[in-house]
């Protein structure tokens, strides 16, 4: 499968997130790793425990996204991938954060009820002490 451009990737990722909007099940997997295709890094051996440590220069990063549908529902599977060049990393992650934040709507919003209750309690307590004195 071909890699998408960043714009396409973000559009499709937003679509993927919105497909789970107002649903009560499902998952979205995002993966990132070094783009090491065609580099022929050897398996670790007794002589060299950590191959891949000495590479010359920055390498691109591969970002994948999927909706996690496997075998029985393979037809519904959505797979997106894009390659981010080292120079674009900061810009990419900025947009990535925006898309993720906008898409992950089912996470718990910041809980303000406790703080409110506390404030009320404090107010009530102050009034009580005023009355007592």
């Amino acid at each position, binding site marked *: 499968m071909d890699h998408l451009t960043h714009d396409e990737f973000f559009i499709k990722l937003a679509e993927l997130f919105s497909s*789970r909007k107002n*649903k*009560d*099940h*499902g*998952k*979205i*997997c*995002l*993966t*990132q*790793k*070094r783009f*090491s295709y065609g*580099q022929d*890094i050897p*398996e*670790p051996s007794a002589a060299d*425990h*950590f*191959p*891949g*440590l000495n*590479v010359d*220069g*920055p*390498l*691109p*990063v591969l970002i994948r996204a999927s909706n*996690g549908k496997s075998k029985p529902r393979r037809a519904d599977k959505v797979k997106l991938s894009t390659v*981010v060049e*080292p120079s674009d*990393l*900061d810009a990419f*992650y900025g947009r*990535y*954060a925006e898309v*993720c*934040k906008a*898409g*992950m*709507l*089912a*996470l*718990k*919003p*910041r809980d303000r009820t406790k703080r409110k209750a506390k404030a009320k309690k404090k107010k009530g307590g102050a009034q009580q002490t005023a009355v007592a004195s």
Partner: protein
Amino acid sequence: MPYYEKSEDWLRESALLLQARPATTRVTTKYHLKPARRLTKEQKALAKQQLAADGKKAPGPAPAPATTTAVPTKPPRGHLLLKTFDPQSGVALKYKTSKAAEVTRLVQMLGTLGRRMAALPEVAGAGQQHDEPMPDAEAAAAGSGTQTPVPTAASTPAAGASGQGPQPGGGGKGKKKKGKR
């Protein structure tokens, strides 16, 4: 396969793992939706009361609407699972959260890890903690029964170059307030 309590700990250990095996380590972010089926005790009691009340009033088709009104009060819950995995050594480091407030920070962390994957130098002013040799972490990694990449990672000259200063502590504040009352 440890779950970390704090995302900072997860980031630090993941960075060390990436330093040791930059070519094979991958970071997976799983956003997971689940129907909220579990009711709290109060909700259960309330539903029961409603059921009983409805049953007294109208012993016919009343119970069905009572349950349907009780269920949609809770929206489905999402969870976010971050996992750093290296297939060659079998090390997996995880962090799980359900708070929306953390998403932006976590993606920033993914960004710092992405820089490491790309073999770029770290941003000095990024505010992230740098690597320091941590005996605890080494012990933990050894205890998980996997070949630990931590010692070599810690002994590289890049480690701990500028991370010696006191870390900006944001965690202690809430506790202090609680103690004062």
